[in-house]
């Protein structure tokens, strides 16, 4: 980026940082500029990567099959007017059908079977087995916590209680190790301001 562009980026960076003090015209300007620019970029990318290749170019090359997605797309635009809104349900039904159909086997494989396959790996040798037992205990107690059809009472209640402790440790660990990632992003922005914009730090 040349000088002017770096300055504009730096000013917008400061506009966003101003939100930390409180909501103010600078932040509100950055917000509205961002909403418009992002919407525009998404529309342009969708046209270049989806509509042009799948509809415009296919129809131009005589592939009549491309009229179907075009028709469904126009059905969606039917929502712009009150009387044509009901016909848009056909395109929505198709879309929801596609992604529900994809979701069932992929969630079953990635979230259910993959986790269970990991869980049934044989215990590690030696004293590492303690870790395997702890993992099994944690797994079963958190599953007990999430059980819906029975109240948290008696043995089930005790297991659920142990499950809460495992959840709290997991949340603490997850929170703790996310701090570094967020800090990295802030360091990058402050480095950008100090070095590229204000030239207080030497260029690399």
């Amino acid at each position: 980026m040349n000088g002017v562009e770096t300055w504009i980026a730096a000013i917008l960076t400061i506009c966003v940082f101003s939100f930390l003090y409180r909501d103010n015209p600078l932040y509100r300007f950055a917000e509205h500029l961002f909403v418009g620019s992002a919407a525009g970029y998404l529309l342009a990318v969708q046209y270049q990567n989806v509509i042009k290749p799948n509809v415009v170019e296919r129809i131009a090359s005589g592939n009549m099959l491309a009229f179907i997605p075009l028709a469904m797309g126009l059905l969606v635009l039917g929502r712009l007017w009150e009387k044509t809104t009901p016909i848009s349900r056909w395109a929505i039904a198709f879309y929801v059908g596609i992604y529900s159909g994809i979701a069932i086997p992929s969630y079953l494989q990635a979230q259910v079977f993959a986790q269970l396959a990991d869980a049934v790996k044989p215990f590690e040798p030696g004293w590492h087995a303690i870790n395997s037992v702890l993992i099994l205990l944690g797994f079963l107690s958190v599953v007990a916590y999430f059980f819906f059809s029975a109240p948290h009472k008696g043995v089930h209640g005790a297991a659920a209680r142990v499950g809460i402790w495992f959840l709290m440790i997991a949340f603490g660990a997850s929170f703790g190790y996310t701090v570094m990632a967020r800090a990295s992003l802030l360091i990058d922005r402050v480095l950008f301001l100090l070095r590229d914009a204000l030239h207080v730090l030497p260029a690399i």
Partner: protein
Amino acid sequence: MAAKRPGGWAARLMGLDRRIIFALIFLATGLPLLFPVNLPITPSPRVRAAFDTVDRQPPGTYVLMSLDYEPDIKAELQPMAIAVLRHCFRKGLKPIVLTLYPAAPGLIERALVIAGTAEGKKRNEDYVFLGYKSGSQSVILGLGESIRQMFPNDFWGTPLDKIPMMKGKNSFADFPLVINLSGSSIADYYIRIAATRYQRPMVLGATAVMATDYYPYLSSKQILGLIGGMKGAAEYEKLMDITGDARRGMDAQSLIHVTIAILVLLGNLALFLTGGFRPGGSGGSREGTGR
């Protein structure tokens, strides 16, 4: 000043205006960048394994480098890319660089210029930049068949056949080493396709949040080294004996983490003084922790 009830400052501390916390975090970031302390960095075994894997390649070895990250998360992966590129150049390796992210080419071009000038290497002689191609998984599968089908030209439009360096380089088989720096599931595609199906030795660089999910692939030898987040990049810079943005940032990382930890401890000290702790827990209401 009249002796205040001990709860006075504690109560005030409990309700501390968060803008004071924001100011502290800002200082904890800016000061170490302006006045570096250079706390010691000890490279972890995972990063050393990645470094050694690159280091033991004989000069002239071709390396396929896929750098897949958007500007939003360049903080952790851009310094890592520069450090690894400089290592390849210093060892006389020949990196062929590509990306599967639409907004990444500008970033990678800058990384190549920085690393290239630092080690005195030139485009199309010491490295080739193939640019961006959409369709992440299908492109990686395509690289197994023919690079030229996926990337007929390099990033600046020169046909691959006109670049002497690319002669005889057609698919994964021609690359003894694959390096992927990624902030998303693209890492899984490379592990499944390049490392497992085509048996390519592979080094992975990932963001800090993602890195822990890939420890199992390291123990199963599907990847030979793992560089995690800004800390991993700083360790790689330490092994390279260079000071890049990652090492510059590590002091700030430490100070930010310490600042948050001290704030939390102070908050609890204040809670203790104002008698807020109820030993024995408050029954099952987990939401109580949120207030």
